[in-house]
């Protein structure tokens, strides 16, 4: 460095926390004597540097001794970096000219050998001094926040979040992949533990969302690309062609009445029922406009038919309609894209797909739903036979090393709900095959006891096999569940008419790619990672992007709603700030040195690096940059520098650390 | 008491050398030592590098003739991969090489050797340099020499990618070809080069052969040695610089051996002396008998003269005429007079220029078929070319990935280390009597080895370029009797 800095060194006792092991006085003295050429002009030790008195000590030196740099050796920067930066600020020194190194968490607390610990403290201090000499005055970046919000996923979590924000008076774009919002909850019959009708509580919210002046509902749409950064995202959304002109459609329903083409509904009815080629997924769908399923529509296959067009009273059918690509500007994004049901076919020994009367939980939801294919009659696949004995298998695809190790959280309660409904509507014998019963929430345990009283059988054991291979009398035409009752250690063969697989929850297919689109990270399982598992469960590592509902991990409706609301609250908080300050730890490309080799281009997960074909140079967008420094380390031309963690800072810190060498003979002398 | 004369460093040769001349009490020459003071050890540190890099690394052995190392290494790599370079690839390499040859021979004749003859061995030192040459034969020649160098380097860059240290030869051929426009340009430059070569021969003819004193000097005994002669030849025993077999003829002109590159180790061995970093190659069959002449001594030389001696002729018409004239004038084959090497060099210059045009006018020279992808597993390969300063041998062993595990280099000038040493001693003994040393005589000592155009940059991987000469004559007690200087510009 050309001009010599004046550095103050402050070594903290932290009561006895540090001084108990490290000879603080010696360290401070050593720094004063040995680090002169590095620019140390004053070095003090003090009981509690973080105390107001300690801070005043620093401020006094800055003023009186004209310090240009401050180096504090105390606790972890994660604890008090801000404290000391502010102290410097208080003395009109740029806060970023201060460095805090830890001689507590990384020294006094973890070592017992006082001599070694003191030596290490010296090394750490000398490293800090060498580093701080290369610090630069920095200003936090301030960016304005666009008041609109993008909510991806129209399930209960997304709806809740959208409504909270919209009600607060800010605009929301609610994007849903399916023709209607509602998500999985719309498929359910009853909700545990209260057993109130799912539709009854969900529909009003759907309608609100549909009519809300502050909500732009984008169903049958998907987010294809997200550019920008917190406060200033631009989302590219593909609004798929419905073949129905929304502004003209009244949702009268004539078109799907007249449509001659029946199609098995694999989505909403999970293959249990049918719909027309032009359809709304379910009666209470929001919005009410139908969609023409171009894959199955006769017109799109053969070029003839057009029945719907003929009969439409408002000429709302438009076969030529094309996908619409729209860009929306938003300040924050909430992801609530939910989950996929575990595919029970993967567990072959359970026979789903092969044995007709093995049902998945979602199939059963439709079966028991009054608006479902059987009008709520719980019957076998043949559509008429009422089962006399029904088994419910818990933890299908969950808590299982072969599939998913995690617990899907909702299956126990769901299974109990099923048990109740079966019992109530068919009077059949119900068997629950479980590993553990987990009912940790308000009213859940009570519900479990209610079931016990209703006389439902509970068999504790993991089902080995479900088959139609009958051996014993009375088994004819039955499904046989092979299971060991681990409480009695007896092998059981339970003959049943119907088996319900309480399948677990899995991340949406392609969630990893999806996460990439938004520049956030997934766990190994594929659930999106929150900023902090306890203290920040709805934020992500990417500023301005929040998660709610099952996208973050399996959870039930109340938890999803709570997260939706929580995410909304966080977004509202941000919007209220109008602008935010970003840490000025950023990468910068020095154009005259950049060769445009493009090696850095694939190093940034936040798409902060753009390449200018015209000038053949790469550039880092400072607001997009999160400051990880990977591109700085990656640039072969050394053309990228990183504030706060520059090469000079790190290299001199290394030199400083190694001034004190435990194995001198190993040093190159 | 003995006197010691130190010539350090030697002037006007590309490299670093030191001559120690010891006089006996009568002031006559007791012995002479020619020492090479440096070694860089390429054989060691190319180990561990992939074989395709040899042509790029060994380039750096010598910046005077990097093209020669580039070619020898590339050919060794071809051999290691057992890959046949497509005809166009071979021609492009040879074309680059001919342009280099013409440039190098020109530089040597006009800047280094020319002064001795054109200006005269006993002319004032201040005139015995390129400028002197220019005065003697006319100013325009200076421009022509520069032009020749420019043209040569232009072609080298067109095909080799760079003026110095070419980079395009890889196992199986080259990384690029040439366009028709480039071909035309190259052809024109080649035709100019032929004229230049003929002009040079004419100048040599008028000034040197026309002058009885010079002719006597050339034919005189001082510069005569009876040794073996080495040179590469094609299937018709015509001299070829880029490819062929190495032929060695004896002092009697009869063929001793004609070996393929991969057989070199059966025929060449290198003798070691503790007072120099350079080794002394000799014909293995004949054996090392010390620094002596004759059919029983394995000493051989590899220079333009030896190449002509080892061949039955030259493959291009004009050069062949000169070849015949050469032997007619000097009384038949083989020619033993070292100073005739300068003439031989000019004949090679003409051959190179003619071959240059031949190649540049071949219809296939612009074909895109300049590289064949190797398919065999590399093992071991030898590559030999004729460097201007002697036969250059590169030999590499590789593992199955083509990574060099061992290397051996027998480099141009090294071939001539023994004969040079002998020439120096003979010249010194003849020219220094009774401790009486004068500058002209010393220059004639230099002429003895300058004929070989030694490049110790190659030989030692040391310092090429010309070094000034200073001779200090000392008594044993170190008292300086006399200091002689000469200036080269």
């Amino acid at each position, binding site marked *: 460095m050309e001009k010599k800095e004046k550095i103050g060194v402050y070594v903290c006792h932290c009561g006895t926390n540090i001084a108990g092991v490290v000879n603080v006085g010696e360290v401070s003295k050593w720094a004063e004597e040995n680090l002169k050429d590095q620019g140390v002009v004053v070095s003090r030790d003090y009981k509690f540097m973080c105390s107001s008195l300690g801070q005043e000590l620093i401020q006094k030196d800055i003023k009186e001794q004209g310090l240009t740099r401050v180096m504090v050796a105390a606790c972890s920067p994660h604890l008090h970096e801000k404290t000391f930066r502010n102290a410097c600020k208080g003395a009109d020194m740029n806060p970023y000219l201060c460095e805090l190194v830890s001689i507590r968490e990384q020294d006094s607390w973890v070592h017992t050998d006082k001599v070694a610990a003191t030596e290490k403290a010296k090394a750490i201090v000398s490293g800090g001094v060498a580093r701080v000499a290369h610090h630069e005055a920095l200003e936090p970046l301030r960016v304005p926040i666009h008041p609109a919000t993008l909510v991806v996923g129209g399930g209960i979590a997304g709806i809740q979040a959208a409504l909270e924000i919209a009600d607060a008076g800010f605009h929301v774009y609610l994007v849903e992949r399916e023709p209607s919002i509602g998500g999985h909850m719309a498929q359910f019959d009853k909700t545990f533990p209260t057993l109130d009708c799912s539709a009854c509580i969900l529909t009003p919210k759907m309608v609100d969302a549909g009519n809300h002046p502050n909500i732009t509902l984008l169903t049958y749409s998907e987010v294809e690309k997200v550019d920008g950064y917190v406060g200033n995202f631009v989302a590219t959304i593909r609004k798929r062609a419905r073949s129905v002109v929304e502004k003209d459609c009244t949702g009268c329903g004539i078109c799907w009445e007249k449509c001659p083409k029946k199609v098995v509904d694999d989505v909403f009815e999970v293959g249990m029922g049918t719909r027309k080629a032009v359809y709304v997924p379910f009666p209470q769908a929001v919005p009410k406009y139908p969609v023409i399923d171009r894959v199955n529509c006769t017109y799109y296959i053969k070029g003839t038919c057009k029945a719907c067009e003929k009969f439409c009273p408002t000429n709302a059918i438009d076969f030529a309609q094309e996908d619409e690509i729209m860009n929306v500007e938003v300040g924050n994004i909430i992801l609530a894209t939910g989950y996929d049901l575990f595919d029970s076919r993967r567990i072959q020994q359970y026979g789903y797909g092969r044995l007709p009367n093995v049902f998945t939980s979602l199939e059963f939801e439709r079966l028991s739903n009054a608006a479902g294919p059987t009008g709520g009659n719980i019957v076998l696949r043949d559509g008429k036979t009422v089962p006399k004995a029904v088994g419910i298998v818990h933890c299908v695809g969950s808590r299982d090393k072969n599939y998913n190790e995690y617990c899907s959280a909702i299956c126990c309660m769901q299974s109990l709900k099923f048990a109740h409904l079966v019992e109530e509507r068919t009077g059949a014998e119900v068997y629950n095959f479980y590993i553990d019963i987990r009912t940790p929430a308000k009213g859940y345990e009570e519900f479990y006891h209610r079931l016990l009283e209703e006389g439902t059988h509970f068999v504790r054991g993991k089902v080995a096999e479900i088959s139609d291979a009958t051996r014993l009398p009375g088994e004819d035409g039955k499904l046989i569940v092979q299971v060991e009752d681990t409480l009695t250690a007896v092998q059981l063969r339970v003959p049943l008419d119907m088996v319900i697989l309480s399948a677990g929850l899995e991340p949406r297919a392609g969630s990893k790619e999806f996460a990439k689109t938004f520049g956030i990270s997934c766990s190994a399982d594929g659930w999106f990672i929150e900023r902090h598992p306890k203290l920040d469960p709805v934020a992500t590592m990417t500023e301005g992007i929040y998660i709610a509902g099952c996208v973050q991990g399996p959870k039930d409706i109340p938890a999803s709603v709570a997260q939706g609301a929580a995410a909304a609250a966080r977004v509202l908080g941000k919007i209220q700030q109008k602008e935010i300050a970003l840490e000025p730890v950023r990468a910068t490309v020095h154009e*005259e*040195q*950049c*060769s445009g*080799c*493009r*090696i850095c281009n*694939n*190093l940034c997960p936040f798409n902060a690096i753009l390449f200018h074909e015209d000038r053949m140079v790469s550039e880092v967008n400072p607001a997009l940059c999160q400051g990880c420094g990977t591109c700085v*380390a*990656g*640039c072969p*031309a*050394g*053309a990228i520098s990183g504030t706060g963690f520059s*090469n000079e800072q790190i*290299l001199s810190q290394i030199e400083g650390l190694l001034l004190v060498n435990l194995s001198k003979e190993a040093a*190159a002398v | 008491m003995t006197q010691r004369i130190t010539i350090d*460093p030697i*002037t006007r040769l590309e490299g670093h050398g030191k001559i120690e001349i*010891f006089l006996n009490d009568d002031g006559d020459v007791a*012995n002479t*030592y020619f020492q090479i003071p*440096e070694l*860089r*050890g390429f054989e*060691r*540190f190319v*180990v561990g*590098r992939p074989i*395709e*890099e040899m042509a790029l690394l060994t380039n*750096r052995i*010598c*910046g005077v003739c990097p093209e020669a190392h580039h070619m020898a290494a590339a050919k060794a790599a071809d051999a290691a991969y057992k890959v046949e370079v497509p005809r166009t690839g071979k021609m492009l390499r040879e074309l680059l090489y001919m342009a280099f040859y013409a440039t190098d021979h020109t530089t040597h004749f006009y800047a280094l050797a020319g002064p001795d003859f054109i200006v005269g061995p006993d002319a004032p030192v201040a005139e015995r340099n390129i400028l002197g040459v220019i005065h003697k034969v006319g100013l325009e020649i200076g421009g022509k020499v520069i032009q020749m160098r420019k043209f040569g380097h232009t072609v080298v860059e067109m095909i080799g990618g*760079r*003026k*110095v*240290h070419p*980079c395009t030869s890889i196992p199986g051929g080259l*990384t*690029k070809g040439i366009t028709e426009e480039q071909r035309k340009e190259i052809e024109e430059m080649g035709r100019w080069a032929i004229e230049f070569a003929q002009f040079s021969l004419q100048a040599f003819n008028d000034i040197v052969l026309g002058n009885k004193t010079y002719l006597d000097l050339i034919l005189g005994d001082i510069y005569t040695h009876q040794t073996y002669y080495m040179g590469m030849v094609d299937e018709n025993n015509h001299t070829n610089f880029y490819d062929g077999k190495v032929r060695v003829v004896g002092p009697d002109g009869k063929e001793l051996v004609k070996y393929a590159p991969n057989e070199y180790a059966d025929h060449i*061995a*290198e*003798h*070691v*002396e503790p*007072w120099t970093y350079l*080794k002394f190659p000799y014909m293995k069959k004949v054996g090392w008998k010390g620094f002596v002449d004759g059919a029983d001594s394995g000493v051989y030389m590899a220079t333009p003269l030896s190449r002509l001696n080892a061949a039955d002729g030259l493959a291009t018409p004009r050069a062949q005429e000169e070849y015949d004239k050469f032997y007619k004038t000097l009384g038949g084959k083989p020619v033993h007079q070292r100073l005739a090497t300068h003439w031989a060099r000019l004949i090679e210059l003409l051959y190179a220029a003619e071959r240059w045009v031949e190649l540049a006018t071949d219809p296939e020279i612009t074909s895109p078929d300049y*590289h064949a*992808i190797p398919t065999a597993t590399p093992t071991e390969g030898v590559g030999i070319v004729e460097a201007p300063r002697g036969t250059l041998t590169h*030999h590499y062993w590789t593992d199955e990935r083509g*990574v060099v595990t061992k290397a051996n280099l027998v480099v141009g000038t090294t071939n001539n280390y023994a004969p040079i040493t002998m020439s120096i001693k003979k010249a010194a003994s003849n020219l220094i009597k009774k401790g009486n040393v004068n500058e002209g005589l010393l220059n004639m000592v230099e002429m003895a080895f300058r004929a070989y155009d030694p490049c110790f940059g190659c030989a030692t991987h040391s*310092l*090429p*370029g010309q070094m*000034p000469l*200073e001779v200090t004559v000392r008594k044993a007690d170190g008292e300086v009797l006399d200091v002689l200087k*000469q200036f080269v*510009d």
Partner: protein
Amino acid sequence: MSKPKFAMYWAASCGGCEIAVLNIHEKILDVDANFDVVFWPVAMDAKYKDVEAMEDGSILLTLFNGGIRNDENEHVAKLLRRKSQILVAFGSCANEGCVPGLANFSSIKDVVDTAFSTISTDNPNNIRPMTAYDMPEGTLHIPTMYPVLKTLDQVVDVDYYMPGCPPESHQIAAVIDLVIQVLQGKAELPPKGATIGAGGSTVCDECGRKRNVKTIKEFNRIQMIQPDPELCLLEQGIPCNGPATRSGCNSRCPSAGAQCIGCYGPAEGVVDYGARLVSAFGSVIDSDDPKEIDPILDGLVAPAGQFYRFNLAGSLLRAAKPAWKSGD
């Protein structure tokens, strides 16, 4: 009045630098016109002794090429440092050791032993050259080789660095123009320690090949593929050092279809050349799976030799080696 004095010298080099200087052709005359050339073995005669006789600092500009391989090289380097106001490390050898610096991978013993035990060497008594050897007529001396080859600034203080193996002639011409302009008061000298006669970026900056976001599934040897003549070589898996190598050569080798081998050394401000290539090549590998990464890396033969092909003598790690300190 007398013209400022100019000198040029080579230590352990191949002479390519001298040839490159000669290749500036008529520009040479400018040198002659503006300088009094007092020491330039390739061009004119003058001895060490004459240089020793000069006043310290009496030479204005000295271009020094070649590495420091033996005591004689170091002696001349120190001599010229004393006599010169401006000492330029000229060419790769003086800057960073160049190819001869690869010898620093081996011990000097290995280097010498290898040279004197090749298959064609006839050396039954296993003789090695001696720095002093007694012959009947007297003792013969040759210089002592150092254990490692050093760069110029490892033995003397250097004012400017001019990279390249050899430096490109157009760059040499440009530098000579600059110096002449300075002499005429028309220009300023760059700050001490600056790199001259080269660009501030890397070879890709001057390379005409098309480039995309770089991701590589395997590295290729140049002779094993028929490369696309338009596309970036590295993107075709060819280990081209261009991204990390200082610009200034007009991307000679890549333009000729050959990979850059790095003769212009590190870019402006780079601490360690090889480290940049470790970053670069690590960065382009298109895999997050160690089981996949390693096979890809196997495609790079002896990476240290590639990353430090010209730079070993100047590298962080080698500069730290105890062996360095000897001879100082």
